[in-house]
């Protein structure tokens, strides 16, 4: 019991478990959490910054000068780089999230098979693993597209 409790108390260190080599799913798990936290932080900031459309925390309605002030802070190279990064992590998080839901429902995880050397589970050879690469590639493409819109 104590050992079990200890295992559950690895906390964030448990995200980086390097004990299983070539474990793409482990990295997808790690980045799903990391990108989720990043997106949540951005969303909270975005809700704060868009409130300047109505004059900020003490505003009473749509306010053009307050919105211009907000854009003067967010619409620059740094702001655009942050937006591109957000598109990158949102795309990865969304596609990988759909993969996780499919896995939860038992879809595309491969068929159970006899355990034989070198003990590779069928789930790590199925479409599930390919979807992680699809998520990475589409995230990069979406970020490039966002970059072309913002800097083009």
């Amino acid at each position, binding site marked *: 019991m104590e050992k079990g409790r200890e295992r559950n*108390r690895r*906390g964030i260190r448990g995200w980086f478990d390097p004990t299983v080599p070539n474990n793409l799913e482990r990295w997808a798990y790690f980045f799903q959490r990391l990108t989720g936290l990043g*997106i949540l932080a951005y969303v909270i900031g975005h809700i704060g910054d868009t409130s300047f*459309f*109505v004059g900020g925390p003490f*505003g009473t309605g749509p306010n*053009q000068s307050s919105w211009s002030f907000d854009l003067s802070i967010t619409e620059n190279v740094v702001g655009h780089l942050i937006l591109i990064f957000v*598109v990158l992590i949102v795309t990865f998080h969304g596609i990988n999230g759909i993969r996780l839901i499919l896995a*939860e429902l038992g879809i595309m995880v491969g068929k159970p098979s006899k355990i034989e050397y070198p003990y590779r589970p069928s789930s790590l050879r199925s479409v599930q693993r390919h979807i992680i690469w699809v998520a990475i590639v589409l995230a990069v493409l979406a970020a490039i597209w966002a970059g072309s*819109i913002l800097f083009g």
Partner: protein
Amino acid sequence: MGDKIMTERKIMMIQYVTGILSVFLVSVHLLYQGVIVPYEKAISFSQVLSLYRHIFYGSMLEILLVVILVHGFNGLRIILLELNQSQDWSKAVDIITVIATVVTIAYGTRTVILAVFGGVS
């Protein structure tokens, strides 16, 4: 214990449903920021105002706000619950994430309401 597991199962289903909805709603939201509408125009005061006051898009923004915050804060809750399994910690995490969700949704909803019904200045 059994009730707790059932509740967590339902919460996990909410996490999946809000996740799928978020993918759709965020995609539409992003498409309006530079693809369907040119980016420079999309962030202009008049365009933002017209979107807030459009019945479909304004409603979508409010739904997006609720869906993404429920998904986001529940995700944060899941991560925090994984870090420690004590009852006090779990209860504190539950309470704090619910309060954070409600407060953030309230602040975002205030922006939507003022944008739709407030006087322009």
